């Protein structure tokens, strides 16, 4: 009974205390634990439109852990979510840079923030805010301090150092070969397709029929078209010597202008400037199928003795070559578009495969300086063959022995960045 009385005495006190508790302001939400070790910097070796965030991997991160990266162009607030990924992703080793340009590993997170994706074009020197939030089961439990960083354009792609070194080696070998060619002659293997050019022009002369030379549908910035103009120079020189007749229908007006100059020069060199006519080169169409239809029509009507298809070709390759084959002309083709090569193989008598097209001008001219370039091509192929052979052995051995770092180094060395 005494016990009951004391309860009744405490009850008014508790009731009186209750409003006091209610009037007390709610306790503030516990702040998120700070995410430590986050750094923001300019993304190296780029044009200046990306930033790089790095922070150490939290050993406590499990499958439920994830991170969010926010970016802002304003002084305060205005945060835009730039990335959202699981804690197992976006490690330092995932950044696609070679070992000599990047030291990131699996013990840190590294996120490249492409600013142009969120802010479009921005002024150089603009400072951006960045922060990282750590989440578990979708709920944020930690956040980094807002960081500031400004992107800047870099002056050298260190990641392309392997490429630059290879280029330097090729340039050195190139000049060595040129120097050697000046002093001594070079032996060049026979290319059947090019040896047949004389035969084709001779046939045209005997038959009194024209020769068609199609430089393809490439522009003057296409290497195969440039190579085609070199071949045209040599072919038209022989045509002038044999007093035969060449027709060069064009797809691109600039190529036509260059080819006019090349053919004119060849006629001059052959001592037959009187035989040269301005209409040997003529523009047909800048539309692929209109060009093919027009040239097909001309080949069908005139039945040339020889057709040359040298340069950049796409779907019109077969349209041209097949029509030429039905007229019974000797056909010599060459292109560096590998998926058009089968059509030329089947429809033409001789086909120059890729690099042979580039070599053709030098091969026909027999100029030592130009032929030296063929030696450089051979040297390049030798380097590739050795690299493939020894690279395969070394990589297989490294993988078998679990030398992961060594394998990575080899892969980096031969990768194009």
């Amino acid at each position, binding site marked *: 009974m005494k016990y009951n009385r004391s309860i009744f005495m405490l009850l008014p006190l508790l009731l009186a205390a209750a409003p006091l508790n209610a009037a007390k302001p709610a306790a503030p939400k516990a702040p998120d634990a700070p995410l430590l070790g986050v750094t923001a910097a300019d993304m190296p070796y780029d044009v200046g439109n990306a930033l790089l965030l790095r922070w150490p991997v939290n050993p406590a991160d499990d499958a439920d852990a994830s991170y969010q990266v926010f970016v802002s162009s304003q002084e305060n607030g205005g945060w835009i979510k730039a990335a959202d990924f699981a804690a197992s992703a976006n490690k330092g080793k995932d950044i696609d840079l070679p070992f000599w340009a990047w030291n990131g590993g699996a013990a840190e997170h590294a996120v490249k923030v492409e600013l142009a994706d969120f802010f479009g074009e921005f002024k150089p020197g603009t400072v951006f805010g960045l922060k990282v939030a750590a989440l578990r089961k979708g709920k944020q439990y930690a956040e980094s301090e807002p960081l500031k960083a400004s992107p800047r354009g870099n002056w050298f792609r260190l990641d392309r150092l392997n490429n630059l070194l290879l280029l330097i080696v090729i340039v050195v070998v190139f000049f060595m070969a040129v120097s050697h060619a000046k002093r001594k002659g070079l032996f060049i293997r026979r290319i059947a397709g090019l040896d047949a050019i004389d035969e084709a022009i001779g046939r045209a002369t005997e038959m009194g029929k024209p020769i068609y030379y199609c430089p393809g549908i490439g522009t003057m910035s296409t290497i195969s078209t440039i190579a085609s103009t070199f071949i045209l120079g040599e072919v038209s020189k022989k045509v002038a010597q044999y007093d035969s007749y060449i027709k060069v229908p064009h797809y691109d007006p600039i190529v036509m202008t260059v080819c006019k100059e090349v053919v004119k*020069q060849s006629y001059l060199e052959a001592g037959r400037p009187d035989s040269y006519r301005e*209409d040997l080169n003529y523009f047909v169409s800048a539309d692929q199928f209109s060009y093919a239809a027009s040239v097909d029509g001309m080949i069908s*009507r005139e039945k040339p003795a020889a057709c040359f298809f040298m340069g950049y070709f796409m779907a019109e390759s077969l349209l041209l070559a097949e029509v030429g084959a039905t007229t019974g002309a000797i056909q010599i083709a060459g292109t560096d578009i590998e998926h058009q090569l089968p059509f030329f193989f089947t429809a033409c008598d001789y086909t120059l495969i890729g690099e042979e097209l580039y070599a053709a001008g030098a091969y026909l001219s027999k100029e030592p300086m130009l032929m030296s370039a063929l030696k450089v091509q051979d040297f390049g192929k030798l380097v590739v063959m050795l690299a493939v052979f020894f690279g395969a052995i070394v990589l297989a051995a490294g993988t078998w022995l679990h030398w992961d770092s060594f394998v990575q180094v080899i892969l980096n060395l031969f990768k194009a960045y």
Partner: protein
Amino acid sequence: MKLIKKHIPLAIVVVTGLFTVASYYIPNKTSVDYLEMINKWENIVSAFAFLLGLISLFYSHFSKISRRTDGWGYSLFVFIGFAAMVVPAVLMHGKQMEAGQVTSLGWAFRSIYNPLSATMFAVLAFYIVSTAYRSFRIKSGQALVLFVAAFILILGKVPLGQIVWDKALGWTHYGVDQVIEWIMSVPAVAGKRGIMIGISIGTVVTSLKIIFGIERQYMGKD
């Protein structure tokens, strides 16, 4: 004269070439702007050169008509076709649609240009058949390999071929799909890569020849 015709163009080629090579290793905005500028110049030059092409086209076909050479009637269609496209383009200010209606230019594109282009493309199918016939004539060991590979590919692409394969070669436990995949991803890719490597090296060397002025045929030799 030699300065204008040879040295200055060569200097332009060398400088532009070296700058373009350097821009591959320099990611700075200056380098990006330089490449953009070069592309713009190329477009501008192309636009002017197109006029040259047009003059050449008209000249060659006009001379054919005036000289009444064989097939001169076809040359008439150059002028007719040109008028059929250019006149509506000028009248319609280059618009193919106006107020939801197809203009005469739009009609010319849809009813003349597109069917003609599609026809040319469709002709390709017939040429592929005749080319395939020619390539399947087995004249050598290499042609036999080509034939066998192509035959398997054709077989695997039709349901009947798959049934025939399963009946005849099912005991090998290799489906025709697997064989096709192997052909396409091993020997075909190996050959293709070999060609690509040769082309890449050739491209680099040809570029060097042009940049360092060893190959100058494109600008005449004087």
